[in-house]
């Protein structure tokens, strides 16, 4: 499939909202397939509201969107990597290590000789997180392009490295943010602006930015072209290596943004932090209609996919019609059903 960066970008919708209008020239059938995940999400929400009236409350909706933010933001970055034909298995461990590094650095500042105020320390922590994410991303990208190692292996290796370093930093236990700092930092997760929690705003911004970059810029077209056919992209004078490194860099920064929102939630990092986030992020991307083989993808599909995955968990928690032992089976059935709805795009 040729890259078709002509999907009209609309307002970022982080919930069951209006579907982007079908762009001119896109066949109706393709549009239906593209809307598959959204239709599934709407159906799931109706089912949720019928099973438990509390599901359809604003508070519950905000809970779900806020907890989706971590995976959702990472999944937006993951969309770029997967569209370009790559994969990143390390994101969960990377998030955990960045969280740990932030906490260690901020605690060191707080207990240092001349502790600055809480705000500068938090800003320093955030800057460190973004820097770490960017460096890790670039390292992945360079190993994949210049090192010519399969991305699966590169990121499987770094998955182990990141988590091991965190476990070592925390001595196997938990790294906990200084109490006063945690208090000062917690609004970043718990505070709302205009009735919408900050993580949801950030998620919306990242999704909007991702949509624009993937569909509206030359770089986005290059990424899609590389995933479609790397050889042809090279012949078309696209700087393939540079574009690929940039996808990993983008993902690294997305992981860092997610971590910046994650740390104020519990104020701690443990060796279980971010466990299996990579699978959830990849599942969100694929459920959202991006092929694992790369080439084409939609950021908004990924957003819907991420919300879908957490809505399933939320509905299962709000009801007790089946044995808790069967919950993962329900998740599996829904994921396969959604994938079926938007199948055979290639």
């Amino acid at each position, binding site marked *: 499939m040729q890259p078709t960066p002509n999907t009209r970008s609309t307002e970022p919708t982080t919930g069951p909202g209006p579907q982007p209008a079908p762009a001119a020239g896109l066949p109706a059938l393709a549009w239906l397939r593209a809307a598959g995940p959204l239709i599934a999400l709407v159906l799931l929400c109706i089912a949720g509201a019928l099973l*438990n009236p*509390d599901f359809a*409350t604003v*508070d*519950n909706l905000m*809970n779900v969107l806020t*907890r989706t933010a971590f995976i959702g933001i990472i999944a937006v970055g993951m969309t770029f990597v997967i569209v370009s034909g790559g994969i990143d298995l390390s994101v969960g461990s990377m998030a955990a290590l960045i969280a740990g590094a932030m906490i260690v650095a901020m605690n060191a500042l707080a207990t240092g000789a001349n502790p600055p105020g809480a705000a500068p320390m938090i800003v320093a922590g955030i800057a460190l997180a973004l820097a770490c994410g960017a460096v890790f991303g670039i390292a992945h990208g360079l190993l994949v392009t210049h090192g010519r190692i399969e991305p699966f292996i590169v990121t499987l290796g770094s998955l182990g490295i990141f988590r091991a370093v965190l*476990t*070592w*930093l*925390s*001595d*196997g*236990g*938990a790294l*906990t943010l200084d109490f006063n700092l945690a208090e000062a930092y917690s609004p970043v997760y*718990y505070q709302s602006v205009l009735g919408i929690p900050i993580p949801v705003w950030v998620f919306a911004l990242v999704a909007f930015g991702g949509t624009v970059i993937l569909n509206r810029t030359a770089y986005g077209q290059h990424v899609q072209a590389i995933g479609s056919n790397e050889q042809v992209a090279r012949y078309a004078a696209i700087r393939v290596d540079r574009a690929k490194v940039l996808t990993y860099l983008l993902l690294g920064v997305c992981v860092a943004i997610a971590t910046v929102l994650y740390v104020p*939630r*519990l104020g*701690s990092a*443990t*060796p*279980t*932090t971010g*466990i299996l986030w990579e699978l959830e992020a990849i599942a969100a991307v694929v459920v959202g209609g991006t092929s694992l083989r790369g080439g084409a993808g939609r950021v908004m599909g990924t957003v819907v996919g991420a919300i879908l995955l957490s809505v399933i*968990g*939320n509905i299962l*928690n*709000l009801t*007790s019609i089946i044995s*808790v*032992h069967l*919950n993962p089976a329900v998740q599996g059935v829904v994921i396969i059903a959604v994938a079926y709805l938007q199948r055979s795009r290639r």
Partner: protein
Amino acid sequence: MTVFIEKGNSMRFSNTLPARIALACALAAGLGTSHAAAPANVTLGVAIPTATHGFTGGIVWWANQAKKELEAANPGLKVIVKTAASTPEQANQVQDLLVVNKMNALVILPLESASLTQPVSQVKNKGVYVTVVDRGLTNPAAQNAYVAGDNSAFGRLPAEYLARRLGGKGNIVVLRGMPSTIDNERVNAFNAEIKKYPGIKVLDAKYGNWNRDDAFKVTQDYLTRFKGIDAVWAADDDMAIGVLKAIEQAKRTDIKEVFGGAGAKFAVKKVMDGDRLVQADVSYSPKFIYDAIKMTANARLKGEALPARTIIPSVLITRDNARQFYFPESPY
């Protein structure tokens, strides 16, 4: 990260836990003979899980603590600690400990009961003295001694406590760990005890995977779903952290108690400090690996055997006795 160990830690061990009299006696006897003439050479292999969460982090720390203290006290003793992330890895380590390190005693916390029974049984047949900790093997003949925490008290004590605390009447929500025999044993004991109080209703029990983040989500959804909750049995101190944050976020004031479990240092600290929601805990300390290593080493140095079964009691921790369960240097 370097951990600085307070001097005299081994002395503190023997007098801080009155509940563990049997253990303390065994240890005191062991300390008494540690400077006896020409101790036998003992190479003790220790096979434990890698630190994947707070509790196993504690296991690794306490095992190394025991190694440090024992090797300093007994020149003829060598303790080799191996951590494994998977069952096959642990089985290989057990083999290596025998073939490469020539161990003659093994303390093992099996990652899984069934699949490690055979490898352990093989080394026992070659004359290695085997102490199994926490998770029993499927064939008890594969072990010389078994040391474990009390999982049924881990469930029963919180049920008793919460029933008393709520005056025999109220709604409780439960978080479970991961689907496993340990979790079943605890939850069954909790349910059996709570059934004695007809005024207490368990609204639901969902898995939080012994993980702070999952517990946070499950609790958020409990709070959405149930408007009146009197107490939460979080069944684990790590999960209790997520529970407390979710309650704080929802600004709910109906909940009177959040009961964790295992006696992690931050939870014991809350009990000591008189937290509004965390007023009690139940001990299930990773320190049992330390006890098991010390008991095995000291018994083997004297050529003695351990009792076939040692159950380290789970004790209710309240403000009165919390100080005895507070180990600030341990990561857990």
